[in-house]
């Protein structure tokens, strides 16, 4: 609100004493409010950072990002505004218009965020008027008033609270997939976040593997890291070749089928597959061989009879098979599918997984993410279980044969396993850390035995 104060008062002097006092009072009030919420109080003195953290306190972190950006724009626009304010140039007029637009957006976000703050303090939304017109005094009252206490503190994610790390690298096999992910991090709104950590496993060829994990456990991040699409601090070896180092060439040896059927609805099945073949197959393959491959794949996936149909006319199952066929056309060694059975009924889904089983049996590695694994679990060899640990990082809670997984978790279905590792606020048992540590111990033990 500081920039607004400067502009609203009509003062042309940035160093106007009244404005400075107001800013100081507001900052002091926010300092105490942040303290009450468990946010670093010093943030109250930094424009933009303050706005973002007020949003965090108000439980509106997502809106707070936009709010902070709007404030940053206001701060940036304020500089030429004060430099050119006496020039009366057309550029200055444009700046004024831009500031006006920013202020309008700012006001809307203030209403959203400060109403959230009222809620966080358990106070009536009538306080919004106060926040709007005399925010410095309201900040002082809420910050220093003993009766003004937030209903809950800002949830802190302790980056160092992660559970035990095994650090035991999987041995590279000459025919399978070896994954050694030390860490996968990202910067999200100036904060470093560890998405995945300490995932080491080796999948032999011909295996069909279930990738199990709750919401936000890092399944898609794991898949993207394994395929080299989003690189991690990791070593991914496919048949002794470094997937990261030779990504440009090796990406054709990895087939990834996304959850949505991302195909152009107004193209025919045959043309869709033929174009996928031209794009994915080596350019050295003759046109006759390519056409034969397209015909064979159409037959194999039961699409030959509808090859001239438009994609948008296909049923859900047919569309899914076409989506898989588009990746299968280049005969990849590693095949990853993100929820291929979503939206399919049990019978169609079973048929699809049997098809995937036959692909694995032909010597490929097939990794499948699914939220309904129990109806097809007999078709899988192994299961990878990912769980969120205390620091909200995706960790490996188990990798191994399906039958051993039941023993490891003490459960008799994959859905129960999922329930046990899910956080309590997601309706789970919240035992993710326990199994991550148990699996890390198991890996360390195996490593010690192996010498």
């Amino acid at each position, binding site marked *: 609100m500081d920039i607004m104060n400067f502009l609203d008062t009509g003062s042309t002097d940035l160093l106007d004493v009244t404005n400075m006092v107001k800013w100081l009072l507001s900052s002091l009030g926010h300092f105490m409010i942040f303290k009450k919420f468990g946010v670093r109080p010093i943030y109250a003195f930094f424009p933009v950072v303050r706005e973002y953290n007020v949003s965090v306190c108000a439980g509106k972190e997502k809106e707070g990002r936009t709010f902070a950006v709007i404030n940053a724009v206001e701060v940036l626009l304020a500089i030429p505004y004060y430099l050119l304010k006496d020039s009366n140039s057309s550029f200055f007029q444009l700046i004024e218009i831009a500031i006006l637009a920013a202020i309008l957006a700012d006001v809307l976000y203030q209403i959203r965020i400060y109403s959230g703050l009222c809620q966080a303090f358990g106070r009536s939304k009538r306080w919004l008027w106060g926040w709007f017109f005399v925010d410095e005094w309201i900040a002082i009252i809420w910050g220093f008033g003993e009766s003004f206490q937030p209903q809950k503190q800002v949830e802190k994610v302790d980056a160092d609270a992660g559970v035990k790390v095994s650090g035991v690298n999987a041995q590279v096999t000459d025919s399978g997939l070896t994954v050694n992910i030390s860490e996968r991090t990202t910067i999200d709104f100036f904060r470093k976040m560890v998405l995945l950590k300490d995932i080491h496993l080796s999948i032999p060829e011909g295996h069909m593997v279930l990738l199990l994990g709750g919401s936000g456990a890092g399944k898609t991040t794991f898949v993207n890291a394994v395929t080299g699409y989003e690189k991690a601090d990791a070593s991914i070896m496919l048949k002794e*070749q470094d997937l990261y180092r030779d990504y440009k060439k090796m990406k054709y040896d990895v087939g990834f089928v996304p959850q949505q059927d991302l195909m152009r609805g107004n193209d*025919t099945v045959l043309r869709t597959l033929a174009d996928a073949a031209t794009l994915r197959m080596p*350019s050295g393959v003759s046109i006759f061989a390519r056409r034969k491959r397209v015909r064979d794949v159409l037959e194999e996936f039961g699409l030959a009879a509808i090859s001239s149909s438009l994609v948008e006319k296909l049923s859900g199952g047919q569309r899914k098979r076409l989506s898989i066929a588009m990746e299968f056309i280049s005969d990849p060694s590693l095949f990853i599918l993100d929820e291929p059975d979503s939206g399919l009924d049990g019978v169609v889904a079973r048929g699809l997984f049997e098809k995937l089983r036959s692909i694995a049996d032909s010597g490929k590695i097939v990794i499948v993410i699914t939220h309904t694994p129990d109806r097809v679990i007999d078709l899988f060899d192994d299961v990878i279980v990912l769980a969120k640990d205390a620091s909200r990082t995706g960790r490996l809670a188990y990798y191994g044969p399906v039958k051993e997984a039941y023993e490891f978790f003490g459960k008799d279905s994959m859905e129960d396993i999922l329930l046990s590792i899910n956080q309590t606020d997601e309706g789970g048992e919240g035992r993710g850390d326990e199994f991550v540590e148990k699996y890390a111990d198991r890996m360390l033990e195996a490593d010690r035995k192996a010498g």
Partner: protein
Amino acid sequence: MDTKKIKHRGRFSQVFIYLGKLFRMFIFQNDWKVFPMAAVIAGLVCYVVGANLFVTQEGTMIGTFALACICIWNGFFNSIQVICRERPIVKREHRSGMHISSYITAHMIYQAFLCIGQTVITLIVCRITKVNIPTQGLITNIALLDIGITLFLITYCADMMALMVSAMVHMTTTAMTIMPFLLIFQLVFSGAFFPLGNGAAKFTDLTISKWGLTALCSQGDYNSKPMVTLWNAVAKLQNTEFNGQKPVAEFMRQAQESGLKEYILAWSGKQNQNPVYAFSADNVLGCWGYLLLFIFIYASIAVICLEFIDRDKR
């Protein structure tokens, strides 16, 4: 497998994959509708402003502005949604080895086909509605072809601007929200109709409408055309009585009978010379050059923006 020895489709070959897709979409989807739409819009505009286009200075100014607006409108609508509506598909294909430059090049070729079609239709409509097309060409000696090239460049440039927007945004609704702002900017900052201050006038150089309108005015030999504003202003006074007589009406009648009117109109035109619209090949080539530069810049930005498609959030 020894992946090091295996080569895949290069950028050039991939252009044809996407060209095939786009032309199939032209038939199966509703892209063909841009042609009848262009005819309807051109018909409406020619009906309203066609009579004085390339006849008087005022008619030329209004008419060429309207023609430039048709082209910008057509160009914007051709491609404003083409990339953003299939962005997740583009992301998947990029992951599978698609080159963004090939994809954009295919779009550029396909959009050029649409723009040429729309330009031809606009010219045919101009002919049908008996618009007075200039007879002397500055670049090719065929005036119609010169005008056609200008109309094509305006349409194509607007098309590429919309393609750039389509590559930048993630949703069709965002693209359709931005489009009117771009259109208004093109109209207001064309530099022809709305008086702009010195600072704001500089922005006109960034608009497609300014260079398109300037090229069309040059090709229509704006400076040689008569100016009717003065005569029309006098005509408004023709009912004024002085000592029971109407001297202005009498003067106008006599001027029309003696041919003085044409002299006055031509004389007015000579007083209203605008060197920016000079009837010269250099002038037209300069305008074309700016439009080509914009096309290149817009297409390049589209490629650069789309190269970051992998960063799209799920």
